[in-house]
């Protein structure tokens, strides 16, 4: 690989570069973390008692008020399934 190309880009980048690494908040700072999953949570709406545990305990805030799971970012930790008193969330192999 040619290192020279990188050196040129230092000067080119200067104009848009902040003074020190300044990072903008956004979803997907680590990309689509949904791809990290081995198992995905699936909600059985019939059994759901609307307790909100899955919303409360999700470290990724990937469960919305309507119990829809954001599979783009859900890392598949399974906390929602484990904390569901109605046992209505199943972890299913991707």
């Amino acid at each position: 690989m040619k290192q020279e190309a990188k050196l040129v880009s230092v000067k080119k980048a200067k104009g848009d570069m902040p003074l020190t690494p300044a990072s903008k908040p956004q979803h997907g700072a680590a990309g689509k973390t949904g791809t990290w999953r081995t198992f995905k949570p699936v909600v059985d709406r019939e059994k759901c008692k609307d307790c909100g545990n899955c919303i409360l305990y999700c470290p990724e805030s990937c469960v919305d008020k309507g119990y829809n799971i954001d599979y783009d970012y859900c890392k598949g930790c399974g906390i929602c399934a484990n904390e569901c008193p109605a046992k209505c969330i199943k972890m299913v192999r991707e």
Partner: protein
Amino acid sequence: MKKMATGNQAAALAVKESDVEVVAAYPITPQTEVVETIASFVETRQMKASYIRVESEHSALAACIGASASGARAFTATSSHGLLYMHEMIHWAAGARLPIVMANINRAVGPAWNIWAEHTDSLSQRDTGWLQFYAATVQEVYDTVLMSYRLAEKVNLPTMVCMDGFILSHAIQPLEITQPGDFIPPINIPHALDTNDPMSYGNLTAQNDYFKFRRAMHDAQKEANVECRSIEKEFAERFGRKYGPTDEYRTEDADTVIVGMGTMAREAEVAVDLLRKEGMKAGSIRVRQFRPFPKLNIEGKKVIVLDRDCSFGAGGILAQEIRFHHNVPVYNIIAGLGGQDVRYETIADLVRKAKPEGEFWLGVD
């Protein structure tokens, strides 16, 4: 207004005039008078700043970084082991591109315990990205602090103003108190923490990006070399006192120059007068600005460098810089370590005996 003041008081007085918002410092000999004076300014409401009585130097600079990162003008002062204890944060302040100004009262480093003047403490911080100045008079301490705020905030690099412990920090000399007025404009840190525009500063940064930020620091140092000249010019026009990266004395026709920093380099001017009387075409150059390192007017001359410091295994640090920037032979005199008293008569004598090249330790060789 003109009055008598110590170097330490001059630093504190300059901070008082610079509209500083946060001061965080930990006392250490011989810097204590700086922080005591500022504390009294704050408590008697002569200064609006918050004064944080931190528990260590590491925290002193960390607090200044916090303040500065949120857009406030900050100041700290330290010396010797205090400066070394800050070392991690010294890198951090520069990498975060925060225009903090620090007074460092140059003092030797232990062991053995030694509280007297030496430049090794601040020179061992030379690769951190800070701008560095070495003052030789009480007035220069004052003026350099004022100019440092202008410069630091212009190029977004922190600045260290150094003075010799006791020799300058505790000596009283006449001082003209200058109100900087709009010479120091209101602070505006472009990358300040802002709850309306949330950004994460200094988070993990990958190889190629990190590389760019480091290059930008290097460029900012070079930019400082240009900016500082125009700030000095404006300072001279407004307040009548002239400064440059170096202070030259009788160098016009000199074939032999003594190069040094701080008070010892100013005393060397008296040695120059002595040598001139004997017919030697001597001159001297006092390096005020150590980072970025300036070009020196030494080509074709016999160069004698006075170092109040040593990089063990390599020699005087100023001498190394000169050898690096100029392809000239250097006779390096290591003198004044641990506050050793160096008289102008002695300097003159060393110059008389100086070889074209080599190293000499005063009081040892």
